[in-house]
């Protein structure tokens, strides 16, 4: 009886995830009409925390310095790199690119610490002049990040609303044409942005993503502590939640994106995701803050989001169960000389697993028009299987957490 009840609970686990995903897809289809209000000119500072980024930094800086806007600079925070990172920064347009070099032993303490040092340097060196913090927007860009040319024009209207603390833009993979794995990562970020982040605009729970993340300086100032960023492995997630808790509104901008480099090797991808997963687990310490400070609707969504690693670990048992059952039944079929596998065993899982592929394929085709709807849906089928990477990453991340490993597993560039 208890076993039967638990079996139904496993079913409820699947229904919960399906219902949540469907609800957010429907919400994401709603449009927000934004009316531009006349406002003061804002000053944009692009922060690039760099640890050995000579391979990708020049292209990123070239993109930033060619943005068609007047009031912006890029601050390269060299986190004690061994390579030519500082040299690359110095070679860029000096009127637009500033370099701040950190030294050991203070350096190499994670991305959050580097970004905090960068913001402190902006103030200590007087680089912001007399600008009011509410008119200064800090943007975090990864060293391999390539911003759309119209990014500032797309993001700026979001800050017309004085309650806007941060804006996240879309994330794409610029090397998405280099094989299926890169294409699937591109689809992952498009689906995450166009479905989940877009829907969260209506729930008040938009998350920050670490790359293409714009924040009003006055909002960062309200976070207190040694600096806005924590030492969490997913400092972006952490910061987004804390901004919401301080009463700021996070927005998601659907009309601009930053492109980054997709990982082209499965093992490195799983390693990267294990770091994200571990950081997500660490973010459980935000739960009391959410319970106390955040309004009900965003609080429920944030709690679901923060607890999703637990759901992933639980869900990972189900495909394993399926494989064991099918393998056992095929073996028994051979032993008994007659097929014991019902076609329903294959049709049912297909419908349950791959119905989402048609939805994700539709969403992706709208972004990637050259691919076409049919090919997009086919890629989305592979995308469903790609989701299993999270299972491996999840157990690895849990193992690292349980064994007390908290080092920065930086994903290498190619």
């Amino acid at each position, binding site marked *: 009886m208890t076993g039967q*009840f*638990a079996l139904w*609970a496993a079913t409820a686990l699947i229904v919960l995830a399906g219902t949540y995903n469907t609800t957010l897809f429907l919400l994401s289809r709603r449009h927000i009409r934004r009316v531009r209000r006349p406002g003061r000119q804002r000053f944009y500072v692009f922060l690039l925390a760099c640890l050995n980024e000579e391979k990708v930094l020049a292209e990123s800086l070239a993109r930033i310095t060619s943005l068609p806007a007047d009031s912006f600079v890029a601050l390269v925070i060299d986190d004690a790199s061994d390579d030519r990172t500082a040299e690359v920064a110095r070679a860029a347009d000096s009127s637009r690119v500033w370099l701040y070099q950190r030294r050991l032993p203070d350096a190499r303490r994670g991305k959050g610490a580097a970004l905090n040092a960068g913001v402190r340097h902006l103030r200590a060196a007087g680089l912001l002049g007399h600008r009011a913090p509410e008119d200064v927007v800090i943007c975090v860009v990864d060293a391999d990040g390539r911003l759309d040319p119209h990014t500032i024009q797309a993001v700026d209207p979001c800050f017309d609303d004085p309650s806007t603390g941060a804006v996240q833009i879309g994330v794409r993979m610029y090397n998405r044409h280099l094989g299926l794995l890169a294409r699937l990562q591109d689809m992952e970020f498009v689906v995450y942005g166009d479905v989940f982040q877009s829907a969260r605009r209506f729930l008040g729970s938009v998350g920050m993503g670490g790359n293409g993340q714009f924040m009003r300086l006055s909002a960062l100032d309200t976070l207190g502590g040694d600096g806005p960023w924590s030492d969490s492995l997913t400092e972006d997630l952490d910061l987004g939640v804390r901004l919401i808790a301080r009463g700021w509104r996070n927005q998601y901008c659907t009309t601009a994106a930053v492109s980054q480099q997709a990982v082209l090797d499965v093992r490195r991808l799983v390693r990267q995701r294990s770091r994200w997963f571990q950081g997500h687990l660490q973010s459980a310490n935000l739960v009391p803050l959410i319970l106390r400070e955040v309004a009900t609707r965003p609080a429920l969504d944030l709690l679901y989001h923060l*607890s999703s690693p637990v759901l*992933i670990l639980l869900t990972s048992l*189900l495909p394993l169960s399926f494989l064991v059952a099918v393998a056992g039944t095929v*073996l028994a079929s051979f032993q008994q000389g007659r097929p014991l596998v019902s076609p329903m*065993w294959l049709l049912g*899982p297909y419908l349950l697993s791959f119905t989402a592929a048609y939805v994700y394929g539709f969403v992706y085709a709208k972004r990637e028009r050259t691919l076409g709807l049919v090919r997009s849906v086919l890629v989305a089928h592979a995308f469903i299987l790609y989701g*299993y990477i999270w299972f491996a990453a999840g157990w690895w991340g849990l193992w690292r957490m349980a064994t007390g490993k908290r080092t920065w597993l930086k994903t290498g560039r190619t």
Partner: protein
Amino acid sequence: MYGRPALGTMLPLAGMATASRTVPGIPFARGLQIAAGMGFLLYCLIAFGLIAARLWLRRPSARAAAAGRPTGGGS
């Protein structure tokens, strides 16, 4: 990014309910599903606890106390 991995194992579950227990692997597969279900029940229990804690933390008297003023009625 989370919450979207493939989920399809429900119908095999239903199939397993009628499958012969002599089929190799079925008891283990069922055990995995039961473990997932029990874990989810525990998750729900904790979720309800958290929601109850939130209601308690955000009750009017607690919020008024946090703001340092009396809980209504009196001046």
